[in-house]
């Protein structure tokens, strides 16, 4: 586990983040209930604002961006879009922005709010990508500064696919291959976060395998 510049641990307990909140039978995926449940249980989560399925105002009014319990990865089109969305909201240092339009190869930049004032580059986010491509089809051209600044690398698991017909197209060991590739690219001193839609299953597996 690594630390940020202020000494706080990044994603302190988990190497998994919830893709659509910590949904269950009483809290539908991407619902306020699912995000609140993730907060209560201390599980970091992604909020994808690019799909239009989530009303960010609800999350702001619930205080989910101001809480200091878990890390939130806000996926917006650009950092500027994120600024507009978050304008006036109470924000904690736990808020990160994933800029989905600012691709570096397949990698999306992640910005952290370490100082509590402005966002700065701190890592990368690898979307799942299409099933026919290699895990990373075109390796991003990382500048030395970007490599230096990278502390965390997130990658989407194949379990974020929700359409059963589409699942068939992904190799079952893709997650492992992606993880190995990323570690090879960034080194083993970074913090890697698997973005999963089945987080509690992941925990169960880690117990069994332990």
């Amino acid at each position, binding site marked *: 586990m690594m630390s940020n510049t202020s000494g706080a641990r990044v994603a302190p307990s988990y190497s998994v983040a919830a893709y659509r909140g910590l949904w269950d*039978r009483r809290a539908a995926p991407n619902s306020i209930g699912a995000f609140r449940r993730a907060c*209560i249980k*201390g599980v970091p989560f992604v909020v994808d604002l690019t799909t239009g399925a989530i009303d960010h105002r609800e999350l702001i009014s619930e205080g989910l961006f101001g809480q200091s319990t878990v890390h939130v990865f806000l996926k917006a089109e650009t950092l500027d879009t994120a600024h507009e969305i978050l304008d006036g909201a109470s924000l904690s240092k736990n808020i990160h922005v994933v800029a989905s339009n600012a691709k570096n190869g397949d990698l999306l930049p992640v910005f952290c709010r370490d100082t509590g004032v402005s966002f700065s580059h701190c890592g990368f986010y690898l979307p799942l990508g299409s099933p026919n491509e290699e895990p990373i089809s075109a390796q991003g051209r990382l500048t030395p500064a970007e490599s230096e600044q990278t502390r965390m690398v997130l990658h989407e698991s194949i379990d974020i696919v929700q*359409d*059963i017909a589409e699942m068939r197209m992904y190799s079952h060991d893709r997650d492992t291959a992606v993880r190995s590739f990323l570690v090879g690219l960034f080194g083993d001193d970074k913090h890697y976060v698997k973005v999963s839609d*089945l987080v509690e299953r992941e925990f169960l597996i*880690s117990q069994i395998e*332990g």
Partner: protein
Amino acid sequence: MTLTEKAVFSRREFPIDSTVLEDLVEKSLRTGFRGTTLYCGYARLTDRLTGKGLLAEVEARVDGFFRLQQRYGFEEREAVSTVGIRGSRFALLIFWEVFHVLAPGGLWLDIDDVGLCRGTPLTEKDLPDRDYYREALTCLTEERRGDYLLRVYRKESPALIGGDVKDDGWTFGILTAGPSAAAAKLVEDILELGSVNTEVIICGPDPGGSPDDDRVRRIDLDRPEPRGWITRKKNLIADAATYGNLCIVHDRFVIPRNFFDAMRRYGSVFSTLTFPQFYFPEVTKTVPQRYPDYQALLQDSNLEETFSHKTYHADRIFHPQYDDFLETAFCCGGLYVTKRSLWQFCRQDESLYHCEWEDVHFGLDSQRKGIPHRVNPFTFFESVNGHPLLCTRMHTLNANGTTSRSLFHVSDVQKRLARRYSPLFKPVVNRSRNEYYSGIIAAFNALEMVDESLQMSMKDVSHCRGLFDFWKEIYRRVASLPLVRREDLLALYNLLTSFVYAHQNCLVQSWIRNTELSLARLNPGTVKGMSLLTTLVRTARSLLGTVPTRDRLVNAAISVGRELLPLYLRIPVPSSGADLSPFVSLLLYYWEVERYYPVIFPADSPSSASSSPPGPAERARMRERFLGSASAKNLVFVQSDNERLPTVWSDEND
């Protein structure tokens, strides 16, 4: 003699040389120890040590019921010594007991294998370093001699529970979720126990019908929480409690009339306790059936991570005997007896809700901090409900450390009662058949993927009488549903979590993923065979454990298959090739339940059997036979000091 244990507990020997022990003890006792030191250890003392009157030995057979307070008082000894206790599975209990015997300002000599003083799989903290003891104990000297570590501690301050030990008052907290005749009766019975300093706090909605009495009050959450926020409710009860002794129960119990006698016999210096809990499936109460009262997580690696994730696998939860103990044992969340000060020291984790293994987590948290979870065997609580999933089998932990997965616990006596006295049985389901069927049918019809052609009505189940045939009809339709998205599966499995048991979400997600993978990968041409194989393998795996060897798995699948194949062929096979094992497992379970529980719904009244209960002589014979059953031996009773505990059939408890 010193401390001993039954051989079956396989304590690790403490082979210290007697001259080394003499040397270590004598040297230490010369450094400030006064009077006679109470010796509580597994190493045999030499005459030289005992002859000088330096040490007074505790002679006892140690098991989960080990107590020191009754003989040695509370914080009365000026000096104590423990030797070689960490090789015992009961080490934490011994430590707890010795700590509470020692007076503030007293000295404690502890000698043990140095390799065992580095913590346990549960926590890296050695016993004196755990939170409950750490502030109270100061290490004065530490010396390593070969493989042994000697430490002398001084107890700086009284035990945290000291104030509550002197308090003879009791706060009973009852959790409610709505109208509850059982809760009202529980309140009435508690008040009739006759203790002067007693109060009852109901936390939740008014159950209705409870006595109008100054000693009863009600509190509640700020707003209703449909998930069952029992952790919060229990914390609220502890916060509101007037007295130092707490008994927190869910509203499905009958309190025993000898509750206070059992607590007096146990002693006032207790940690977190529960009692044996039994469900009696028929009215003569001949066959006590163990409820998940005292359990243990069987896992000795990766515990830190598991604890931090707060996600536990039901397949790793076992029922030990009541006199057994593990650091990962825990009292069932339905019934706690503890001290208010202990509860405040180690509170329930409010991020966990009903059926989220909040009790496993609480047990691990407590024991990591040094507070053992134990059983008071001197009475039992009757649960008015059976466990919805454990009517026929439960995972059992044997004293020698082996496990019996899915131990079939229905005794021959119960089978006989079911055959001859079926009208005496309680219904498995507490709602009428119509109400039960119609509720599930409505939920099924409300599924998004159930179009008009698949809609069900009560006519479709008019031939059904029980659970197996009804759920088979449901499953017949489930097997033909178009399942294309994850949300379809979530909605589908909600039928089970809403109407059968509120399974943990980690398990539901595993079901969903298994079904998804089967749908995404199976070749429709091999559907039937693959579904059968998957089911058999899964069933065999649940019997054998999570990581069986291939040979064992195959043999078990063949064995399970032989028994279940005829039944399995009566169960519809999904045309899509979907692995819907949770439904199939439920069908197999209900098939078994109906063999031994003759009354399924309240209105059922089997006419072919006697409705008058067996006479006293026959009851006595049946009880005697029950005592010889595997259920009685492995789950219900333990032999302790020539006494069979708990007492189930005394007149008082009848």
